């Protein structure tokens, strides 16, 4: 059994909030373990917040696409944007240090996604950044 959701948004945080809400509603209908919608929300928020903030010139409006595919074994989330070429997986992991006073928590979002999903990959295709994350439905 496979179910698929295709959505698009403009490069704004307000649209991102609406897209996440629509995705939550789609997932709610499928009775998934609670960690799955949590992780899908995390992927969308962290990846697409970066796209909205950094992928385009200020004031320009662009379409970002999201495809969520639910199969028996996993949820696959694919985010595509026509912004500046950027591979978030190439970012160095943040170093928080050993003291709260010295801590500079930048770059946490992508780091979290990389650690918490089962797999993630990036490609640049015909001027489009494509990031794909997969979350297994059955964990020991």
């Amino acid at each position: 059994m496979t179910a698929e959701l295709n959505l698009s948004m403009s490069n704004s945080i307000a649209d991102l909030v609406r897209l996440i809400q629509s995705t939550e509603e789609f997932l709610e209908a499928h009775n998934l373990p609670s960690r799955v919608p949590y992780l899908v929300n995390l992927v969308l928020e962290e990846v697409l917040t970066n796209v909205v903030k950094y992928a385009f010139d200020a004031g320009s409006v662009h379409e970002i696409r999201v495809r969520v595919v639910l199969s028996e074994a996993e949820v696959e989330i694919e985010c595509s944007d026509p912004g500046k070429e950027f591979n978030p997986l190439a970012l160095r992991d943040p170093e928080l240090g050993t003291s709260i006073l010295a801590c500079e928590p930048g770059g946490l979002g992508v780091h979290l996604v990389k650690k918490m999903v089962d797999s993630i990959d990036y490609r640049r295709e015909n001027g489009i950044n494509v990031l794909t994350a997969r979350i297994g439905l059955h964990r020991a």
Partner: protein
Amino acid sequence: MELKVIKSDPRCTHIALSGKLDVAGEQEIGDEFRLLIDTRNTSFLVDMSQVTYLASLGIRLLFAGAKTLAEDGWKLVVLRPQPMVEETLLNSGTAKLIPISRSEEEALGLL
């Protein structure tokens, strides 16, 4: 997202957060949280037992609060996060710098 002050004494302010600490949630309570941190002159116990979601924006809010408190010798302790929120705190490395506690008594002992 909601923020409530549960109780306060000269040593500790106990607040409770509830809801999703996402982009929208941070906008709803961020200013109030920062104001409390800046003005209370105590350590903070942040009860997250009713927080259903935490992302990097919320983590940065906690870090900024803990850092501000540490500059004056105070501490911030997170109390009773839900399993996925705790997993987020652990995977982000937050738990190495901001203690997580299972009970109020344990948390007060960490302050």
